[in-house]
């Protein structure tokens, strides 16, 4: 990797706790994109120029401002119901962020808990949890998510639960593996010798030691979860219509794509792509930083 040589060429720094956590190859642009999307999501009410769910039928299919026929009133044009695309993109960021983060945390909590229990207790508990994970992994994730969505019906919080139930298995697998090696470490044996209960050991000695891996996995899962949310919305079983979700906008725009109204699908598509790409780049960087093997320690 060519980037490494630059880091070595830097002048020596004063030693500090963060010395090993150099920011030389920090993915600045992806991080900025995620921060901006997060801020937009939080302040959507203040930023959006129009109500995202109410349009005027007299102003349908306006093109973006730089094209002929575009006006500064609708910077990125309007859709088939005359709703402002920019406002809908801004509120769509909120849906993606909320669904993305809560689903990742939900899946992480379920998967990490089961992974720790399975790895630490071993025996038949391990067998039951791991066979359940195997079965779960054998189901195609998207098909399973569609199946669940069809049962519980469309709503934003149902999507969170569905995504959590679909993706916890990845955490369970990885975390269990780490716990298997951790539980043979001397400090865990010392805790046993000192009379700590199994639950104290799992909570106080195992969990803090695997939290790095869970965070890295969570960052990498963020992209997957956002894509799946957009897919479900695109298929019409995700976030229900009047609400603005990027996947939903993509789906609404697809009929008029051939007629040249590109802004209806290309813009939300770009938003999804940028956000997923940023999440993945950041996750990759974190993985390299937090994984001792890749850090060559």
């Amino acid at each position: 990797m060519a980037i490494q040589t630059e880091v070595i060429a830097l002048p020596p720094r004063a030693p500090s706790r963060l010395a090993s956590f150099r920011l030389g190859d920090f993915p600045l642009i992806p991080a900025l994109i995620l921060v901006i999307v997060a801020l937009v999501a939080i302040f959507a009410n203040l930023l959006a120029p129009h109500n995202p769910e109410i349009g005027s039928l007299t102003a349908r299919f306006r093109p973006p401002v730089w094209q002929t026929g575009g006006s500064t009133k609708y910077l990125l044009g309007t859709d088939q119901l005359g709703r402002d695309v920019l406002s809908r993109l801004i509120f769509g960021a909120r849906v993606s962020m909320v669904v993305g983060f809560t689903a990742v945390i939900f899946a992480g909590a379920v998967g990490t808990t089961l992974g720790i229990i399975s790895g630490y207790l071993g025996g038949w508990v391990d067998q039951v949890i791991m066979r359940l994970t195997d079965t779960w992994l054998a189901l195609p994730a998207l098909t399973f998510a569609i199946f669940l969505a069809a049962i519980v019906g469309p709503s934003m919080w149902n999507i969170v639960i569905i995504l959590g139930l679909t993706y916890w298995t990845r955490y369970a697998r990885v975390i269990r593996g780490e716990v298997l090696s951790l539980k043979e470490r001397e400090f865990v044996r010392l805790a046993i010798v000192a009379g700590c209960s199994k639950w104290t050991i799992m909570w106080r000695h195992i969990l803090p030691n695997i939290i790095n891996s869970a965070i890295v996995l969570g960052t990498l899962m963020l992209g997957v979860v956002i894509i799946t949310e957009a897919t479900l919305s695109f298929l019409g079983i995700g976030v229900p219509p009047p609400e603005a979700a990027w996947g939903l906008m993509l789906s609404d725009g697809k009929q008029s794509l051939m007629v040249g109204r590109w802004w209806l699908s290309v813009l939300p598509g770009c938003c999804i792509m940028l956000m997923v790409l940023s999440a993945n780049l950041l996750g990759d960087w974190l993985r390299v930083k937090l994984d001792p093997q890749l850090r060559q320690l």
Partner: protein
Amino acid sequence: MAARPLLELKNLSTHYVSAQGTRVVRAVDEVSLRINAGETLGIVGESGSGKSTLALTIMRILPVAARIVSGQMLFEGEDLLLKSDEEMRHVRGKRIAMILQDPMASLNPLFTVGDQVGETLRVHEGASRGSAWSRAVGLLKAVRIPSPETRVTQYPHEMSGGMRQRIVGAIGISCGPRLLIADEPTTSLDLTIQAQYLALLRDLQREHGLALIFITHNLGIVAKMCDQLAVMYAGRVVESGPVSQIFNTPTHPYTEALLNSIPRMTDNRQRLAAIDGQPPDLSAMPPGCSFAPRCPDVFDRCRAQAPPAFTTAAGRSARCWLADASRDNPAHLRVESGAL
């Protein structure tokens, strides 16, 4: 000794059983030992002689493949083998503490020293975080760590090996146990630190009236530290008794050979005396005495029949036919078997 011993092991056997149940390794076989309050018992033996398994058996933290097949472990009059797992958890760390083989790696890298020393107090005495913390400072002072107030806030990687070891010692004594088991606690230390640590352990023992079980293969440490000695060979205690008596007049040929193999300053031998051969396979033990194939004094009976533990003097016993007092003249037998 009239007083009840603190810990008394009676015919304790721990076997490792393979998954199919076809191979049985007798790691601890018919061990009987006793240790009084405030006393130090040294357990010596070669690698694989069952010393560590014996320690794990006393703590009841054996790996899943191991089974305690018979015997009694009377600790302050209660049989530890009859306790439930939950009751046993309250014995561990509180009444019997243990220092592990590698104390250097025994600390969790993510917590401060104060948190870890205080943890045992919080688990067993329900101490609050604050009071556990302030008692941790006192414990660090007790194990002679300089400026304990700042040390408690530090993480294990900020300490030297000797300090980490003393911290593990502090965790061991935190709840005022009656018995401390130290399983080769000095193997990873250099000699000066080792001497300091042993002095510390002895002082702690004196101040707190602890009984200490010291597992080692270093006879020099035993001579310095211990009152009683048990020599283990192939899962059995072949000889036990007061240290000075055993060192002066070993009864069992194995003990004698062990003592002969220590190099001495005054020695002008060209080669060290070694014991020929290998310890037996614990899953396929010879029918007679387990030491018979390597024993210089072996005779016919040794190969046919395993000797029981004979009491040779007050508080001393040996598993050797030579120690059988009912025989006419053991010394004569030695000469006779010299021809072999």
